[in-house]
């Protein structure tokens, strides 16, 4: 039996598998973004952590970042549900929008087009991540329409669609588009029961290997 990690019930072995799935999803998303911006996009996920909500708010791993432009994709499988979030600092979001639309988005000037663009990027990246997990675990994921939010960390994590995020699976992600570094973070927000169900699915997957 593998070692328990922190206060969650995901083991080191589970985390290793989950990291690999997220890396596959992010790698696929990089290829898709590459196609969208017609430029080389490097996507890198340096670390993945599983953190309780309280711990996350007390010591946010997103150091120096206060406000976020986030896209949130609610998901539900047979056994677990939650929200997957792609969060950018506002400046990075503007850089990404400018890169994709060819128009300047200083101070969010593009308005609706900015939101539509970021939602679609979020949709593609988050579907790649969650779809990779679903394909590997052999489960079917149902999604709700993604939503866009501007706000701080508390706002990003607040209850939406009846989900209070007890646990956060946090992947710090860097999008490097040509010379521009666009920082972003991927968060998978789940409840305690869903984390236990995810843990069971991962354990089942490992037993089949």
């Amino acid at each position: 039996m593998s070692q328990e990690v922190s206060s969650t019930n995901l083991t080191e072995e589970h985390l290793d598998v989950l990291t690999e799935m997220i890396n596959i999803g992010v790698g696929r998303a990089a290829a898709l973004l590459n196609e969208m911006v017609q430029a080389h996009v490097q996507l890198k996920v340096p670390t993945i952590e599983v953190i309780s909500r309280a711990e996350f708010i007390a010591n946010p791993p997103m150091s120096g970042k206060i406000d976020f432009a986030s896209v949130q994709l609610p998901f539900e499988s047979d056994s677990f549900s939650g929200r997957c979030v792609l969060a950018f600092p506002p400046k990075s979001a503007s850089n990404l929008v400018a890169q994709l639309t060819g128009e300047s988005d200083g101070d969010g000037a593009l308005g609706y087009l900015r939101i539509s663009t970021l939602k679609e990027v979020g949709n593609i990246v988050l579907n790649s991540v969650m779809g990779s997990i679903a394909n590997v675990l052999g489960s079917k994921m149902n999604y709700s329409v993604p939503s866009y939010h501007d706000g701080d960390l508390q706002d990003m994590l607040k209850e939406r669609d009846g989900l209070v995020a007890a646990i956060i699976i946090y992947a710090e992600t860097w999008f490097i588009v040509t010379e521009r570094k666009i920082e972003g973070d991927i968060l998978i927000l789940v409840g305690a029961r869903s984390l236990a169900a995810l843990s069971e699915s991962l354990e089942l997957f490992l037993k089949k290997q």
Partner: protein
Amino acid sequence: MSTVLIIDDSTFQRNRLRTTLQEGGYQTLEAGTAEEGLVIIESANPDAVLCDLLMPGMGGLELLRMLQEKSSEVPIVIVTADIQDTVREECMRLGAKGFLTKPPQTAELLAALAAVL
């Protein structure tokens, strides 16, 4: 010249698809919802439809089901961010003639349309 209806709630994605299709020699129609798309399919009789899956209101799967019930012959090519194998299979079972993941490459998009027209 063939007419292709684009159904997608994302303005950004519709803009991209419209540009690609028009450069590829197609006329385009657009709908921001599946409900609106259904009305256009029945009134304007497009030659093919590119349809997203996850949209506010009726989704692409429901649209496929409705068109199947109506015995519609308009070919539908799904263009979605959803990469799940199970979703692809469900779309094809419901009568989709193609399944592309976003963002589709120009060559694969035009090939998918050429295959159904």
